[in-house]
């Protein structure tokens, strides 16, 4: 099992304007913020289950950018159907990292389905993803990150992480501000206005 902050920091190393990140509500949003606030981070604080659909809409709109959804097992389970939707659409620039502690960490640590039998990487692969990885140890992370950042998508890596508590790092919470910042940074690059 990996430490979530170290894994996400490695995943988002050298974060430039070509990498657009959608962070799922709760700990993944804090993890992405802790790795370094960036104009191309879209932080979710609600709308559970929609991180992947948001990433898909963004990936379709911005085919020249890499879109990376960073979310947790609980959020991904709520939106499991969206893996089928992504598999049907097969966007080559979409990647999903699931930080999987097999628990609903924000609500008391209740065990989730991934600890009770669900293999989200297998679900994605069976739904038409181009690649999927299950990461259980540090030495498996490097190749998974290479896939998430560079491989033809859609790809997914399920990263098994420790439940050990980490300090909270709270980014912007005002949805209008998060949306405006993201769009201004992306669309002022000469893209579609």
């Amino acid at each position: 099992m990996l430490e979530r902050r170290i894994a996400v920091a490695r995943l988002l190393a050298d974060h430039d304007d070509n990498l657009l990140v959608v962070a799922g509500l709760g700990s993944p949003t804090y993890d992405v913020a802790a790795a370094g606030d960036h104009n191309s981070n879209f932080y979710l604080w609600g709308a559970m289950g929609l991180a992947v659909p948001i990433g898909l809409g963004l990936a379709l709109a911005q085919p020249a950018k890499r879109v990376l959804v960073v979310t947790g097992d609980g959020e991904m389970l709520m939106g499991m159907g969206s893996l089928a939707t992504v598999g049907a659409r097969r966007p080559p620039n979409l990647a999903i990292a699931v930080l999987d502690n097999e628990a609903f960490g924000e609500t008391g640590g209740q065990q989730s389905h991934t600890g009770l039998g669900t293999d989200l990487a297998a679900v994605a692969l069976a739904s038409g993803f181009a690649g999927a990885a299950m990461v259980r140890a540090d030495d498996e992370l490097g190749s998974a990150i290479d896939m998430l950042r560079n491989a033809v998508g859609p790809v997914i890596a399920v990263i098994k992480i420790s439940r050990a508590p980490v300090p909270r790092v709270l980014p912007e919470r005002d949805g209008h501000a998060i949306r405006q910042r993201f769009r201004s940074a992306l669309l002022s690059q000469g893209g579609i206005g």
Partner: protein
Amino acid sequence: MSEDWQGDIWQALKKGGIAQVAYVPDAGHEKLIRAAHADHGIKATVLTTEEEGVGLMAGADLGGERGVLLMQSSGVGNCVNAFSLLKTCGFPFLTLVTMRGEWAEFNPWQVPMGQATPETFSRAGFLVYRVDHPEDAGSMVSAALANAFDSHTANAVLLSQRLIGAKVF
């Protein structure tokens, strides 16, 4: 404007610069869905459930594109918490909803959500339009589209069951 109200809606969407169409199918949207898939300028996405479409449209907006969600009134209930994303972040949003459970309905299971649909949208902060006559469809969608993308609001156009034609088995 003609009796081809679905054709009028398609023209309004194209003129309004819609680039993404997401849908859970309904017979009343059949022509639009076919047109979307046939148009190389449109990215058409079939969903497993309607709330995915709320996320998809938010993502499209983040990427600088305009989209529309096509669904049936029964799907509106599936979207309720997802609508909080629109309000909290100020996303522009347009959905076209084919109505069930309101006019010569043969299936009692369609009635509760059909009857609750207008108020559900209102309580979620939407501007709500209703098309009863085919000649209004194109202009109503154009108006809702402008309110969505020029005034940054959430908009729902309800296509009445009488307009679509009662479904029979």
